[in-house]
C-alpha cells in the first residue's frame, strides 16, 4: 500500500504530482491511500509518505478535459475524491476516449462532483452579501458565507475583478479571502460571530425584495429549487420570505376585491381611412395614407410600409417588386444589396440617380421567418392587385414619361396583367395613358445568379436596358 499525504484539501498540484508517480510506478488504485495533512483521515494513516514520490521522471498524456474536470472535482467535500480521481486517471492512461463516455460510472461520478463544485461556486458568486464596515473612504466590505465545497480560492478572483475598487473580505469556516485593492490573500477559516451583523442598506434591500415580488404568482417550489434553504441563513432578505408567502393570498384577494377604476375615455388616434381610388394627391399625403394601409394582409408581419422616394418631377419612375429585409427595417426602397447594384448600374448607364423616382409594386415585405432570418416570398396576385392603387396614385402625382418595370411582379403591376419579362424586355412599350414602359430584370435576380460568368453578362444586359432610359432622360429634360 502507498500512502499519499496532500498539503491541503485543495492541493491539485500535489495530487497531480503524486498521481503521475503512482501511474509511472504501476501502482493500481486499490494500492493507494490518500489523505490530507491535518485532515481527519490522516489520523489513521502512517505519517511518512512513501518514498517513490521523490522519483519524478517520465510523463504521459491525459486529455485536457480530464484535467479540467479534476481541477474542479478535487474541490468537492467528498473524502474519497482523490482516490476516485486516481482510479479514473489509471483507466484513462490506456483508454483516452473513456472521458467522453458519459455513462461510465467513474466519469459520471467525477462529472457530477465537478458540477456540484461549479454550482456551489456560482451560488457563492450570487449569495455572498457584503456588509459595510466604516463609512466613506474608510469603508471595508465584509461578508460571511458557508460554502458547501472547498471553493473559496476558486470563487475569490471573481470578486476581485468585480469589486476592484473597494477593500473586502469574505469570511468562511474553511478559509477567508481578502482583497486590499491590489492583491488577493487568504487566511484560515473563522467562526460566524467574527462577521459583522447588519448593514444599513439591508432594510432598503428587503423593501425592494418585497415590492418586486408579485403575490398573485406564488411559486414557492421554483424559488426553493434555485435558492435552497441552506443558503437562507445568510441572506438578509430571507427573513421576510415566510411573511410574504403567508400574506400573498390576502393581497391577491384584496386586489381582486378592490373596486376597479373606469378607464379614460379612449383617445383613439384618427382612424386611418381605408384607401380607395381617390384623386391624385400630394406625395407626402399619399405616403402618410399608405403608412396605414391594410388593403391586404401583408402589413401584419412587416415593420412598415415602404413607400416610393424621389423627386416629384422625375421623368423616370423605377418600379421594383417589393421591399426586402433591409428596406423593411429602414423604411426606404432599394437600400439593401440590390439597391447598391441598381445605383451602380444606373451610373454606368448614365442615368442621373437623383432625378429618378424609385418605388415598389408591393409596398410591404412578404416573408416567412426561419429562425433568425426572414425568407423572402413572392407576392401573390391579390396582393399585387391590392397594392396597385398606390402605384397608380404615385404615377398620377409624379407624371413620369417612362416607367421601368424591374422583374415580373413589377411588370404585372405596370401592365395590369401577368407579363413575362422575356418577350417584352429591353424595348420601349406604349402604355394606354401615353407613357412609355420598359421591362427589365430585378437587380436582386442578378445577385442570385450562381454562375459568375452569367452574372457579368446579365449585368451588362441590365445596364444596356437602363441606357434606353438614359437616352430618354436626356432627350426630354423637363423644366423643374
Amino acid at each position, binding site marked *: 500500500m502507498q500512502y499519499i499525504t496532500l498539503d491541503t484539501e485543495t492541493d491539485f498540484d500535489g495530487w497531480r504530482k503524486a498521481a503521475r508517480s503512482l501511474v509511472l510506478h504501476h501502482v493500481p488504485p486499490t494500492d493507494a491511500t490518500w489523505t490530507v495533512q491535518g485532515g481527519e483521515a490522516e489520523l489513521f494513516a502512517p505519517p511518512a509518505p512513501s518514498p517513490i514520490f521523490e522519483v519524478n521522471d517520465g510523463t504521459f498524456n491525459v486529455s485536457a478535459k480530464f484535467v479540467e474536470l479534476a481541477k474542479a472535482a478535487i474541490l468537492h467535500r467528498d473524502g474519497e475524491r482523490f482516490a476516485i480521481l486516481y482510479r479514473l486517471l489509471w483507466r484513462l492512461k490506456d483508454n483516452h476516449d473513456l472521458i*467522453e463516455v*458519459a*455513462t*461510465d460510472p467513474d466519469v459520471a461520478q467525477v462529472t457530477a462532483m465537478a458540477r456540484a463544485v461549479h454550482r456551489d461556486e*456560482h451560488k457563492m458568486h*450570487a449569495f*455572498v*452579501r*457584503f456588509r*459595510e464596515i466604516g463609512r466613506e473612504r474608510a469603508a471595508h*466590505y465584509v461578508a460571511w458565507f458557508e460554502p458547501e465545497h472547498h471553493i473559496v480560492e476558486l470563487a475569490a478572483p*471573481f*470578486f*476581485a*475583478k*468585480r*469589486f*476592484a*475598487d473597494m477593500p473586502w473580505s469574505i469570511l468562511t469556516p474553511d478559509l477567508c479571502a481578502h482583497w486590499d*485593492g491590489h492583491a488577493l490573500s487568504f487566511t484560515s477559516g473563522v467562526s460566524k460571530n467574527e462577521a459583522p451583523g447588519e*448593514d444599513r*442598506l439591508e*432594510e*432598503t*434591500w428587503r*423593501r*425592494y*425584495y*418585497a*415590492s*418586486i415580488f*408579485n403575490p*398573485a*404568482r*406564488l*411559486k*414557492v*417550489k*421554483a*424559488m426553493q429549487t434555485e435558492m435552497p434553504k441552506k443558503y437562507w441563513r445568510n*441572506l438578509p432578505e430571507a427573513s421576510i420570505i415566510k411573511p*410574504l*408567502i403567508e400574506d*400573498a393570498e390576502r393581497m*391577491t384577494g384584496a*386586489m*381582486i376585491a378592490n373596486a376597479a377604476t*373606469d*378607464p*379614460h375615455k379612449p*383617445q*383613439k388616434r384618427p382612424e386611418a381611412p381605408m384607401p380607395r381610388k381617390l384623386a391624385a394627391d400630394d406625395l407626402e399625403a399619399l405616403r402618410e395614407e399608405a403608412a396605414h394601409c391594410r388593403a391586404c394582409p401583408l402589413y401584419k*408581419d412587416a415593420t*412598415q410600409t415602404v413607400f416610393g422616394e424621389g423627386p416629384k418631377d422625375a421623368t423616370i419612375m423605377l418600379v421594383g417588386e417589393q421591399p426586402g429585409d433591409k428596406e423593411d*427595417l429602414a*423604411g426606404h426602397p432599394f437600400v439593401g444589396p440590390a439597391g447598391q447594384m441598381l445605383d451602380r448600374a444606373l451610373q454606368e448607364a448614365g442615368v442621373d440617380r437623383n432625378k429618378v423616382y424609385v418605388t415598389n409594386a408591393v409596398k410591404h415585405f412578404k416573408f416567412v*421567418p*426561419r*429562425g433568425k*432570418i426572414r425568407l423572402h416570398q413572392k407576392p401573390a396576385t391579390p396582393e399585387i392587385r391590392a397594392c396597385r392603387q398606390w402605384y397608380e396614385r404615385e404615377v398620377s402625382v409624379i407624371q413620369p414619361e417612362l416607367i421601368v418595370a424591374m422583374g415580373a411582379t413589377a411588370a404585372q403591376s405596370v401592365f395590369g396583367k401577368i407579363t413575362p419579362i422575356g418577350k417584352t424586355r429591353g424595348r420601349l412599350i406604349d402604355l394606354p395613358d401615353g407613357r412609355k414602359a420598359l421591362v427589365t430584370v430585378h437587380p436582386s435576380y442578378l445577385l442570385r445568379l450562381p454562375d459568375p460568368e452569367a452574372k457579368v453578362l446579365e449585368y451588362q444586359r441590365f445596364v444596356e436596358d437602363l441606357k434606353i432610359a438614359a437616352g430618354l432622360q436626356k432627350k426630354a429634360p423637363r423644366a423643374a
Partner: protein
Amino acid sequence: MDVQRKLEILADAAKYDASCASSGTEKRDSSDGKGMGSTAPGMGICHSYAPDGRCISLLKVLLTNACNYDCLYCVNRASSNVPRARFTIDEVVKLTLDFYRRNYIEGLFLSSGIIRSPDYTMEQVVSVARKLREEHHFRGYIHLKTIPEADDALIAEAGKYADRLSINIEMPEETSLQQYAPEKDVRAIRRTMGRLRLKLDEAEENRSTKTKARPQRFAPAGQSTQMIVGADTASDHTILHTSANLYGSYRLRRVYYSAFSPIPDASRALPLVQPPLLREHRLYQADWLMRFYGFDVAEIVDDSAMLPLDIDPKLAWALRHRDRFPLDVNRASREELLRVPGFGTKAVERIIATRRTTTIRLSDLARLHVPRNKALPFIVLSDHRPAPHRLDEARLIERFKPKATQLGFGF
C-alpha cells in the same frame, strides 16, 4: 417622500415586466482599478429569488410611474389610483451603486412611464446610464427600456451605455393593442425594433471587420421584448406566430411572456382572475423549441389552437407523430434525438459523444440525465425496445399527465 418609499412604489410598478436576465453581454471587469463592476458573457447571475419563483438579478425600477398613457393592462396607466413617485437621476444612480457594492444585484433595469414626451422620457432614462458609466465607471449590467419613436440620437446613446435595450410589444395582436392601449402604436414599436436591429447589425459588422477606428458600441446583449398573455383572447398559435416573426425580423434575444395578473386598482375593462401561469410556462417551453430545437410554429401548435396544458409541447408533438418513433438512440441523428421527449440539448451532446465509444443501454439513462419515464416509450436502446403497439395506445398520454400534487412549502 424618502427614497425607501419611492423604491417601494417604483419597484412595485416595475414588477409586471418579466424580463430579468443579465446575460449575453460582452465580458467586462474593473480590474484596471477604475470604477466597479463586471459582467460575464455567458450566464448571468441571479442574486436572489422572489417567492413568485422569479429570479432577482437586477435592480428593476421605474424612473417614474406617472404616465400620460392609459393602457388598460398597466398598473401605471393615467387613470389608475396608485400612489405616484419619481426618482431623481442621482437617486437611481446611488441605489444601483449601493446595492451593487453589497453584491445584491448584477446591475440596473430601468424603465419609465411616459411623461411630457417620448424624447424627454428617453433622455431621462439615458441620463441615468450615462452617469453610471461616465461618472462612476460602472461596469455592471444595464438594461434600458426604449421609448418608441424616441429620437435616433437618443437611441444611439442608449445603445452606447446599455447592455440590452427592450421595447415591449405588449399584445400579440395589433387589434388588441388598439383596444387596450389606444395611444400606443404597434407600428411605432415595430419601427423602433427595426431601427434597433439595423444598429445592432451595424455594430456587429464593425466588430467583425476590425476597422482601425474603435467600433461604435451598441447594446452587446441585443434587444428583447415582452408580450402579455391572457389579457386578450389571442390563441397560443397567434402568440407563437408573433414571436417567430419578431425573432426573425428583429433578432430578439428573448421574447418574454408575462401572464396577465391582477393589479392593484385594475381597470374595469379587464377580467380579474388568477394569472394563467401554466399557460405562460407552456409558451416558454414552446418558445424554447423554436429557438433551440428548430421547431416551426406550425409543428408546435395547429392554426388558432392552444397548447395542451397537461403535457409539455415537445411531448405533445411526439404523441402527434408516433410514426417517427421509436428512435434508436445509438443510431439516430442529432436532429432526431433533439425531438425525443425528455432529451435536452446537453443530453443529446452526451449521447453523441458516448456512443462513439460504447453502446448505450437502459441503465445508462440516469447517468445521461434523461427522465426515463418520459423517454422510454419513444426510444430503442441495445437492451430496450418499447412493447409493440405501446406507442399506439390511446392511453399512452395518460402515463404522462402529472399526478395531482399539492404545492408544498415546509419550514
